[in-house]
C-alpha cells in the first residue's frame, strides 16, 4: 500500500477552552495517557502523539487550554506562536457543546488564521442530558467549516473527526466568511456568536443549570463550605490511613523475607561480609522500607484526589479559600497546589504551573513543603498513636488519630498563609493579581479508569523514587553507622553529639535532628533512622509494635513535648531532595532551590524553639 500523496506526516493542532475535554479527545485519538483533570490549566505542556487514518500518518499536538488568541497569559502566547509559526496543517478546535457561546468566540478567532479548521463539538452527552440541542449541519454551514459532534469519553465520533481532518488537510479547507473585522473586537465577535447560536442552538430546558447551582450552594455556601472541606479532608486521610495499613505490613514482611533470603545467597557467592551487610542491611532494607511505607498510601490517596479533581469539586475549594490567600497576597489556586502536595510535595510543585503570576507561583512552590506529603503521614500517625491517643482503642482511636492529623494539617495551612504573607511583603513583593477562576460543571468521574491509571502511575513513581533516591541514601546511612572514628565510635555517634545542643534547643535531641537531616532524600526513613540511632545498630530497622517503640523513645528521653516538637518540625523543616530538585527544574534557578530549603528550615527552628521554650516554662 502506498501512502497518499502529500506529506509523510500531517501536523494537527488541538486548541480549545480549558475544561472542554480536549485532552480526552487527544488521548482518544493518539492512545496516550495524558492526565485530564476537570479544572482550568491542567494541561501544562504541549503533548504530542501520533495516529494514522486511511494509510496516512498524523501528529497531534495538544496545546494548553486558552480562552482567546489575544495573548494575555503565557499559555495563550505559546498557543498563538505555535499556530502562527509552525507548519500546522490543520487545527481542531475542541468546543464544549454545553457552553457553545463562549467556545464559539475562540472558534471565530481561529478561523481568521487561514489554517484549515475542523470544529470538534465535544461533551455531546452532557448537552443531551441538559436538553441542549445543536443543529450541527446548520452550525457547519454558518461557520463555513466542518463540525463533528463527539463524546470523547465514550469514544464516539472520533472516526468521523479523523475523516474530516484528513479532508481538510488534503484540500486546504475553505473560508466562506470574511471574519477579519468582527473577530478582532470582542463585542462584535460575540454579536456574531449570538447570531450563529440563534440559528443553531435550542435550549430544551430553561433551568438546566439548577442542579449545579444547588450543589454550589452546598459546597460554597456560607455555613457549609468550610465544614464540608474539613470533612472531605478528614475522610480522605482516614481512608488513606486505614486502607494503607494492611498492604504496608504485607510489603514490610515481603522485604524482610527478601532480605533474609538474600543474605545467605550473597555470602555463598563469596562476597565479603561487609559488602553483603551494606547491600542487605543498607540498600535493600531502606528500599524495602520506602516502598512499604510510601506505596500503599499513595496508591490510595492519588486515585481519591483524582476523583475529586475529575468531579469538578476542586475549583470550589479554590473559591472558598481565595479570600484567605488574597489576604496573604497569594493566589487562590495555591489551595489546589497544597492539596496536590498532600500526595507528594514534588507533584505539588509541578502543579504550581496552574498559577499564572510568576510571583505567586514562586510563593506557592516555596511553601508547598509545609503540607505533609504521603511520606510524612506515617511518621505523624505513629507519633500521634504513641503519645496522644493511648487512652482510646478501636474505631475511636483511629477516628481520633484522623482528627488530630486533620488538626495538624490545618496548622500547616495556617503556617502556609502566614509565610506566604511574609514572603509577599519581603522577598516577593507585589500586589495580588486579578484572578478569574472558572467553576466548571460537575461531572461524574470515570471511577474505573481513574483508579487503574492512578494505581499504575503511582506504583511506577514510587518504585522509581525508591531506586533513585532511597537506595543510595540507605548505602550512605549504613556507611555512617558502620565506619568508626577511633575507639569504636561510629561516625553516626559523632554526628549525633554534634547536633545535640541545637537539637535540644529546638525541643528535639541530637538523634532526632540528625534523622531529619539524613532523611532529606526520603522523608519516610525518618523514624527508622531514629530507632537505629537509639539502638546503636548498623542499619535501619523497624519495630512492629508501637508500644515497644514508645518504650524505646521514652527510655531515650522523649516526653510529650518532644513528640509535639518533633511533629511540628516534621511539618516545618525542609523539602525532600526530590522536591528541591523539582523546584530547581521548574524555576531554572539554584538560588530559589536553596531558598526553598532555608525558608521552611528557619520557620521550623523558630516555631519549635518557641514551643519548647513555652513548654518548659509551663511544665
Amino acid at each position, binding site marked *: 500500500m502506498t501512502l497518499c500523496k502529500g506529506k509523510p506526516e500531517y501536523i494537527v493542532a488541538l486548541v480549545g477552552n480549558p475544561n472542554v475535554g480536549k485532552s480526552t479527545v487527544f488521548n482518544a485519538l493518539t492512545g496516550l495517557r495524558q492526565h485530564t483533570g476537570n479544572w482550568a490549566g491542567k494541561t501544562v505542556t504541549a503533548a504530542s502523539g501520533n495516529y494514522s487514518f486511511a494509510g496516512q500518518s498524523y501528529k497531534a499536538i495538544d496545546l494548553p487550554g486558552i*480562552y*482567546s488568541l*489575544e495573548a*494575555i497569559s503565557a499559555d495563550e502566547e505559546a498557543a498563538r506562536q505555535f499556530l502562527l509559526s509552525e507548519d500546522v496543517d490543520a487545527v481542531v478546535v475542541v468546543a464544549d457543546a*454545553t*457552553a*457553545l*457561546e*463562549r467556545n464559539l*468566540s475562540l472558534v471565530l478567532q481561529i478561523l481568521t488564521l487561514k489554517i484549515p479548521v475542523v470544529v470538534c463539538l465535544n461533551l455531546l452527552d452532557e448537552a443531551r442530558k441538559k436538553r441542549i440541542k445543536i443543529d450541527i449541519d446548520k452550525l457547519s454551514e454558518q461557520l463555513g467549516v466542518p463540525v463533528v459532534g463527539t463524546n470523547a469519553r465514550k469514544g464516539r465520533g472520533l472516526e468521523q473527526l479523523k475523516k474530516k481532518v484528513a479532508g481538510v488537510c488534503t484540500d486546504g479547507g475553505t473560508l466562506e466568511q470574511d471574519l477579519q473585522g468582527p473577530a478582532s473586537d*470582542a*463585542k462584535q465577535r*460575540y454579536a456574531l456568536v449570538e447570531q450563529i447560536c440563534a440559528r443553531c442552538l435550542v435550549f430544551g430546558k430553561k433551568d438546566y*443549570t439548577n442542579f*449545579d*447551582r444547588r450543589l*454550589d*450552594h452546598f459546597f*460554597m*455556601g*456560607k455555613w457549609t*463550605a*468550610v465544614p464540608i472541606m474539613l470533612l472531605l479532608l478528614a475522610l480522605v486521610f482516614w481512608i488513606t490511613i486505614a486502607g494503607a495499613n494492611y498492604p504496608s505490613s504485607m510489603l514490610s514482611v515481603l522485604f524482610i523475607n527478601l532480605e533474609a533470603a538474600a543474605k545467605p545467597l550473597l555470602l555463598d557467592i563469596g562476597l565479603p561480609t561487609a559488602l553483603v551487610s551494606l547491600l542487605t542491611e543498607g540498600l535493600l532494607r531502606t528500599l524495602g522500607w520506602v516502598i512499604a511505607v510510601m506505596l500503599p498510601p499513595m496508591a490510595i490517596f492519588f486515585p481519591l484526589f483524582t476523583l475529586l479533581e475529575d468531579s469538578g469539586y476542586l*475549583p470550589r475549594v479554590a*473559591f*472558598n479559600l*481565595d*479570600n484567605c490567600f*488574597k489576604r496573604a497576597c497569594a493566589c*487562590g489556586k495555591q489551595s489546589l497546589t497544597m492539596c496536590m502536595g498532600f500526595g507528594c510535595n514534588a507533584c505539588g510543585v509541578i502543579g504550581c504551573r496552574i498559577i499564572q503570576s510568576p510571583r505567586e507561583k514562586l510563593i506557592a512552590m516555596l511553601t508547598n513543603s509545609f503540607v505533609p506529603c504521603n511520606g510524612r503521614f506515617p511518621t505523624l500517625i505513629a507519633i500521634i498513636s504513641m503519645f496522644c491517643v493511648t487512652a482510646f482503642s478501636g474505631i475511636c482511636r483511629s477516628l481520633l488519630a484522623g482528627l488530630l492529623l486533620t488538626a495538624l494539617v490545618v496548622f500547616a495551612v495556617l503556617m502556609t498563609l502566614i509565610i506566604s504573607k511574609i514572603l509577599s511583603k519581603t522577598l516577593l513583593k507585589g500586589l*495580588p493579581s*486579578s*484572578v*478569574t*477562576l*472558572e*467553576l*466548571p460543571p460537575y461531572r461524574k468521574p470515570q471511577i474505573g479508569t481513574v483508579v487503574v491509571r492512578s494505581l499504575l502511575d503511582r506504583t511506577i513513581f514510587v518504585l522509581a523514587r525508591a531506586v533513585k533516591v532511597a537506595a543510595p541514601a540507605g548505602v550512605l546511612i549504613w556507611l555512617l553507622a558502620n565506619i568508626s572514628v577511633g575507639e569504636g565510635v561510629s561516625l553516626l555517634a559523632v554526628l549525633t553529639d554534634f547536633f545535640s545542643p541545637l537539637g535540644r534547643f529546638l525541643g528535639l535531641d541530637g538523634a532526632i535532628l540528625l534523622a531529619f537531616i539524613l532523611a532529606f532524600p526520603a522523608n519516610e526513613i525518618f523514624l527508622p533512622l531514629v530507632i537505629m540511632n537509639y539502638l546503636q545498630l548498623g542499619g535501619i530497622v523497624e519495630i512492629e509494635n508501637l508500644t515497644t517503640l514508645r518504650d524505646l523513645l521514652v527510655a531515650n528521653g522523649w516526653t510529650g513535648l518532644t513528640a509535639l516538637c518533633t511533629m511540628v518540625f516534621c511539618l516545618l523543616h525542609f523539602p525532600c531532595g526530590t522536591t528541591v530538585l523539582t523546584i530547581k527544574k521548574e524555576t531554572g534557578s539554584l538560588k530559589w532551590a536553596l531558598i526553598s530549603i532555608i525558608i521552611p528550615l528557619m520557620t521550623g527552628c523558630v516555631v519549635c524553639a518557641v514551643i519548647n521554650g513555652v513548654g518548659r516554662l509551663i511544665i
Partner: protein
Amino acid sequence: MGKAYLTLNKLPQGKCACVKTLFADEEVKRRLEDLGLVTGTKVEAVQKSRSGDPTAYYFRGTVIALRSEQARQILVEV
C-alpha cells in the same frame, strides 16, 4: 421607574443584570471580554463566598468567579 445602575460586586446573590461598561484597565478588560463579559451580556450573581469575596457569576453558559477588585470595575444595569 428608571433603570438602576450598580457595580457588579454590589449585585445581590440570585439577581440578574446587564453589562453596561467595563472600567477595568486594558489587560483585565480584555480578559473579561474574552470570557464573554461585553456590553449587553446578561449576568447573574449565583454564589457569594462566605466573606463576600470572591463571587461566582453565570454568563453565556459558564460560571466564572471574580474578586471584588475586578467586579467593582464593571458597571451593570438591573
